[in-house]
């Protein structure tokens, strides 16, 4: 976003920058200056920079988001085991503390960079950019960014990824999309994980989770799987293969893609119907 080319100007706010608007005097005699800039524009700028890096090296970047303990790292381990020969995979791990997850992933034979955020509840584009300096993107086809386990804050920060994948484990409750709408509506794919436990749970219905997701105006596909038993992992792998092909095609055409929810895109039509 910028305040020079006018890309923030919409039908709803145009009056602010027309004569008398931008530098209107307030009653106190002070000057009111219209800005109309996204609060996270510095982050978004860095995210766009990261995305350029990924595209230049032909890397597909996937942001994995979920609550803590939903099985992000286990899914990555199973994915590397199965697709490690098909794709060159790299991982950026985000946690408040410890190198544990990066160590788990490295054991599977792929490069992994651990970001420890200290107290921060999410990754941001600057942290990811710094981590990218430790990875050779030219040696990768797919980069997974495992975000901090948190169903709230990571949704607000673009990292430069191409796709958002949100995990919902069956031990969490099938109404999570209704409880955390900002996170789940940002998903390009929702994975219902730990399906092997469905047999002993009587209160989680995958179709109900999908029902709540549809109420968020989301058309994202839903895949129910188990990284432990391997149940339905092929559907997830097929989605990844399709995305990898789509990324190759985009690069060949000089295009890129952002995750389903694009704050800037939304701003471009903010208030147009109000």
């Amino acid at each position, binding site marked *: 976003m910028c305040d020079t080319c006018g890309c923030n100007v919409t039908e*709803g*706010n145009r009056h*602010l920058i027309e004569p008398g608007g931008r530098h209107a*005097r*307030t009653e*106190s*005699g*002070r*000057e*009111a*200056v*219209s*800005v*109309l*800039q*996204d*609060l*996270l*524009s*510095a*982050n978004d700028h860095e995210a766009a920079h990261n995305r350029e890096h990924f595209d230049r090296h032909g890397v597909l970047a996937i942001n994995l988001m979920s609550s803590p303990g939903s099985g992000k790292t286990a899914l990555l381990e199973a994915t590397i085991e199965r697709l490690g020969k098909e794709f060159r995979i790299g991982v950026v791990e985000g946690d408040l503390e410890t190198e544990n997850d990066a160590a788990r992933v490295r054991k599977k034979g792929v490069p992994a960079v651990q970001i420890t955020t200290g107290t*921060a*509840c*999410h990754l*941001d584009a600057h942290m990811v950019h710094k981590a990218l300096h430790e990875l050779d993107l030219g040696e990768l086809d797919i980069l997974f960014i495992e975000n901090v386990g948190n169903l*709230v*804050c990571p*949704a*607000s*920060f673009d990292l430069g990824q191409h796709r958002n994948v949100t995990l919902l484990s069956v031990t969490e409750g099938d109404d999570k*999309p*209704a*409880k955390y*709408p*900002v*996170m789940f*509506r940002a998903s390009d794919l929702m994975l219902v994980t730990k399906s092997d436990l469905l047999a002993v749970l009587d209160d989680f219905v995958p179709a109900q989770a999908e029902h*709540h997701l*549809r*109420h*968020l*105006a*989301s*058309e994202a596909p839903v895949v129910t799987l188990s990284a432990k038993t391997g149940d339905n992992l092929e559907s997830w792998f097929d989605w990844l293969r399709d995305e990898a092909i789509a990324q190759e095609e985009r690069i060949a055409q000089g295009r890129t893609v952002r995750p389903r*929810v694009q*704050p800037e895109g*939304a*701003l471009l*039509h*903010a*208030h*147009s*119907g*109000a």
Partner: protein
Amino acid sequence: MHELAVCQALMDQVVLVAQREQARRVTGVTLQIGPLAGVEPQLLLDAWPIASAGGVAQGAELLIESMPLRVRCLECGCDTDAAPNRLLCGECGSFRTRPISGEELLLKSLELERDGKVA
């Protein structure tokens, strides 16, 4: 609790605009925030005195305009009110909708005093 990070990003922008406008002091900051921004206005208000302390906007009033959540239906074309976890068309019930208001996380305007001038 990413509101402090958001508030610090806001502060960075306030400083840049204040420099550009050659402001001596920023006395008011107005934001627009929608229910889908994922930011809790009250937490931003709580974080603001900390983020603004000691800078050009110390003591400035932070005003937050809460934006309505409205969706446009891609099926029937109607614009209707919605809730964060129910973004269906209020007219025909379709889930093929797009928000037209409610995702804002915007620095709308600043009120400021300029260097050496009576504003």
